[in-house]
């Protein structure tokens, strides 16, 4: 059976699809998360030498890098759904944008929080106005601003469009964070975040890092789908398909 891809852009169709997929994404998140944490804590060296020596506290890397990557990626997703909504005027696109944003805000907070708790033992300070820390903090405010703007406008479709514009404008922060490493050569200046490459990282540490990032990504799918289902019901509460759907699910 061939279906046009717009088929799933109808909230009534996507509602069921999202519901069927959520448990799988949650299960994947838990399984890959546990494997990665086991690997990160038991298959890695306790201390790292080299130019940037680290003691056991470097194990914060798994949750820190994972949440920092997700904070940027989910912002791209929010802006992407917002753009699709503005271009095609599809309601579901806006609903997806609003569904992803709270999870993105949580990961941004987590990146800042774990960064502080890694910075204290490693750099001797909880916070510094280093370019990367500062731009990540601005990203957090962007998420909060996006959600606040959306909830401040009563009319859902106006709120969708206004917040979508803000999300797209705010997209400039993502490359800023990505390239915000103020010191290309650590011998010439003191940089907090230094340039790193995948090939320099110990394979076991990289595995734990990528694994936990994948788990966070699967978790984000699950929470976005859970949230979008509630948003669909909230906005379409008085339609007949909602009544029929809930009867089918056996909800009274």
């Amino acid at each position, binding site marked *: 059976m061939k279906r046009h891809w717009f088929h799933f852009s109808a909230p009534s169709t996507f509602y069921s699809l999202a519901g069927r997929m959520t448990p799988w994404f949650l299960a994947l998140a838990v399984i890959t998360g546990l494997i990665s944490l086991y690997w990160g804590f038991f298959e890695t060296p306790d201390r790292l030498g080299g130019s940037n020596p680290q003691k056991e506290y470097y194990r914060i890397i798994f949750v820190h890098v994972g949440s920092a990557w997700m904070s940027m990626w989910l912002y791209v997703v929010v802006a992407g759904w917002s753009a699709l909504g503005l271009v095609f005027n599809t309601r579901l696109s806006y609903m997806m944008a609003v569904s992803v944003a709270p999870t993105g805000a949580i990961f941004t907070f987590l990146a800042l929080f774990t960064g502080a708790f890694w910075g204290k033992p490693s750099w001797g300070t909880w916070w510094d106005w280093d370019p990367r820390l500062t731009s990540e903090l601005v990203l957090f405010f962007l998420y909060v601003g996006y959600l606040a703007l959306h909830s401040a406008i009563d009319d859902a479709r106006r709120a969708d469009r206004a917040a979508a514009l803000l999300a797209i404008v705010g997209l400039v922060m993502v490359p800023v964070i990505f390239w915000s490493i103020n010191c290309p050569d650590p011998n010439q200046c003191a940089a907090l975040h230094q340039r790193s490459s995948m090939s320099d990282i110990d394979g076991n540490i990289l595995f734990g890092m990528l694994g936990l990032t994948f788990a966070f990504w699967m978790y984000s799918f699950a929470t976005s789908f859970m949230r979008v289902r*509630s948003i669909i019901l909230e906005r379409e*509460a008085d339609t007949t398909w909602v009544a029929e759907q809930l009867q089918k699910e056996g909800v009274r």
Partner: protein
Amino acid sequence: MMEFLAQGGFAFYVWSCYGMAVLLLASEILALRKRRRTILARVGRLKRMRDAEEQA
């Protein structure tokens, strides 16, 4: 086991991070479940109101 929990004396930093991660992610799931129960209750009320109107 104690050695694992101690993390070379950095237990406070390491476990604060993982604790905060678990706390936030679990709270989000719980909040989402609560939000779903709330909207289901509202849709149920709406349906009963409509049914009552039809009978009247």
